[in-house]
């Protein structure tokens, strides 16, 4: 219609003028714009529709069985076909998560060692450790920890293995060993487990292929958490027996929430190698408190090494994360290892636990934030405070121990009576073990802040008494005061978690 009117209006003019063209061009442009806009909007709606569809699929299916898994399936990549999300996260344990006390990765170039970088040395960071462990392989090589992916190779090429003879027992926690134990025992896992210490680590490590894998914590037929390590089964049964629970079978009796800590406690614990066959054993017969553990060692007379400077028979502690956690407020409230170290991760409409096991500080919202809604860095500041205070006390205690070691070393030749030397050596052992148990624990005091401070006060006390012993004080003179003893007894009766000393 418009065009016709335009035509009639322009008729009197002998020459056609371009009067209608601007309007027509405008309309063409408008129509073009509508077309482009509609196309863009349709594109966006279609994309939205696809994501909605995907999210609905995610919520409908949790997993798809692609391959059959059984007790012989050690390779985690096969499990990964059924559980790709968990497997992808598991692979990321190869990534180094830097945090306040993680150390750093440093270049590494040693002939015969395939590693191009390793975590920085704790011995270089704190040379007091060399004095503490003088005469023990740990004084030669001790580095910051890193992800599960490196547990086998780092153990294979540490100077503690290269320069010393280590038993195959170490592999219990430096590789996936379910198949290995079965193989060594000709089908009898317990026998295979007990035989591990009879083979040198250098040999046995050639027989394993993977670091800790799915099968070490999961039942391949049901995916339920399960304990695969005989040492933990025995240790937890002894612990439960000390609490009056007989015949405890962890795979039968533990709750799911307990299992979410117990699977980790198969390795992140204090241990020793018992007997000639060097069988991995957990010192839990009397309880998990460091006093219980120290008493246990005193009772069975276990010694890890003789200190090169002082001649003291000393215990070495190692990564007792489970024991320290058990004494803290999170354990008391039923918060498991996995709640903080394997927090849930949303993948669209589904949720999986994060199998990149690492420090909770890597994502405070996803870990602490599940229970603590305090934002604005309050939780991070709290962790910093706890860890800084830990380091302050730890440093004082370690200084005191080094001072005792200095004095005791000098006293070897200055005519100090043997009885005084011997007494001082027992105090060295105690101070050393108590410091070690919190130093080799990887939370920098966080897992049980007040308990850790108590341990360090005990270590300081032991170092002080060791120095007094060298000056002639007798064991009787160094006993705690009556008030202290009474308060300890009272605390014990009230179940305050302290067992003495």
């Amino acid at each position, binding site marked *: 219609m418009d*065009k016709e009117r335009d035509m009639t209006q322009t008729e009197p003019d002998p020459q056609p003028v371009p009067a209608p063209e601007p309007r*027509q061009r405008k*309309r*063409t442009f408008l*129509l*073009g714009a*509508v*077309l482009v806009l*509609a*196309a863009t*909007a*349709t594109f966006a*709606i*279609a994309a*939205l*529709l696809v*994501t*909605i*569809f995907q*999210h609905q699929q995610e*919520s409908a299916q949790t997993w798809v069985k692609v391959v059959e898994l059984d007790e012989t399936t050690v390779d985690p990549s096969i499990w990964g076909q059924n559980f790709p999300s968990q497997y992808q996260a598991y692979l990321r344990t190869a990534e180094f998560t830097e945090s306040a006390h993680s150390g750093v990765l440093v270049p590494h170039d040693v002939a015969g060692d395939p590693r191009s970088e390793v975590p920085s040395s704790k011995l270089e960071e704190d040379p007091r450790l060399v004095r503490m462990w003088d005469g023990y392989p740990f004084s030669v090589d001790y580095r910051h920890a890193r992800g599960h992916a490196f547990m086998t190779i780092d153990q294979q090429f540490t100077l503690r293995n290269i320069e010393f003879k280590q038993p195959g027992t170490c592999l219990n926690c430096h590789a996936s060993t379910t198949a290995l134990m079965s193989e060594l025992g000709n089908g009898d896992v317990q026998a295979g487990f007990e035989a591990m210490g009879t083979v040198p680590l250098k040999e046995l490590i050639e027989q394993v292929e993977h670091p800790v894998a799915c099968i070490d914590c999961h039942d391949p037929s049901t995916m339920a958490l399960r304990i695969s390590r005989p040492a933990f089964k025995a240790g937890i049964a002894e612990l439960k027996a000390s609490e009056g629970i007989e015949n405890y079978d962890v795979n039968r009796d533990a709750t799911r929430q307990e299992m979410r800590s117990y699977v980790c406690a198969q390795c992140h614990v204090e241990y020793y190698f018992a007997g000639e066959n060097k069988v991995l054993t957990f010192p839990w017969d009397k309880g998990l408190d460091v006093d219980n553990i120290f008493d246990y060692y005193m009772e069975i007379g276990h010694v890890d090494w003789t200190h090169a400077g002082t001649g003291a028979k000393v215990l070495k502690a190692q990564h007792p994360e489970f024991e320290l956690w058990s004494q803290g407020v999170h354990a008391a409230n039923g918060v498991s290892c996995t709640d903080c170290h394997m*927090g*849930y*991760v*949303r993948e*669209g*409409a*589904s949720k999986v636990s994060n199998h990149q096991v690492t420090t909770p500080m890597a*994502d405070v*919202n*996803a870990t602490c*934030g*599940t229970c603590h*809604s305090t*934002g604005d860095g309050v939780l991070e500041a709290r962790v910093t405070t706890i860890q800084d205070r830990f380091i302050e006390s730890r440093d004082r205690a370690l200084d005191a121990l080094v001072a005792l070691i200095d004095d005791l070393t000098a006293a070897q030749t200055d005519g100090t009576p043997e009885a005084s030397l011997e007494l001082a050596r027992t105090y060295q052992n105690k101070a050393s073990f108590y410091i070690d148990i919190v130093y080799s624990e990887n939370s920098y005091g966080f897992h049980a802040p007040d308990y850790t401070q108590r341990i360090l006060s005990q270590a300081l006390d032991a170092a002080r008494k060791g120095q007094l012993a060298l000056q002639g004080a007798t064991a009787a003179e160094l006993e705690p005061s009556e008030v202290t003893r009474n308060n300890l007894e009272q605390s014990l009766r009230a179940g305050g978690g302290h067992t003495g000393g």
Partner: protein
Amino acid sequence: MAAPQPERRGWSPAFVLLTAATFAVGLMVGLGLFTFVYAKGASYLSTDPQACINCHVMNEQYDGWINGVHADVATCSDCHMPHDNVVHKYWVKGENGFMHALKFTTGWYPENIVARPVSLAITNEACLYCHAELTNDIRHPGTPDDGEVFDCVRCHSGVGHG
């Protein structure tokens, strides 16, 4: 003069463009409607708490609510939407819905979801919609000039979600 006109009207570029644009708009509306229905769009206009867990992100909040003390007396929108007038309510509903859809689609949100201050303020007001009289005595400011807003959910953070 008269003959070419119908021809031009039928297949002129403008006519082709008009047809295409109309078709495109129709396609957009059709696909939009389908998406709206497929995504249960209508459910978001209701006050049914089921709509709030369509995407499962708020499953825990829903579980907490259904097992909590408010399950029999208040729905999600009773505490999370304003009560002053219907325009404000639907404005907040639309704004919340847009933000939720944006974040869920892009994945740009923390593992443990956190309410924005503006949302907390609405909830705080909603507490008073029912509990104003009960809490009248304890909400007195220290001085008449004290403008401090009493934040119910600062202490009663678990009251809505059990």
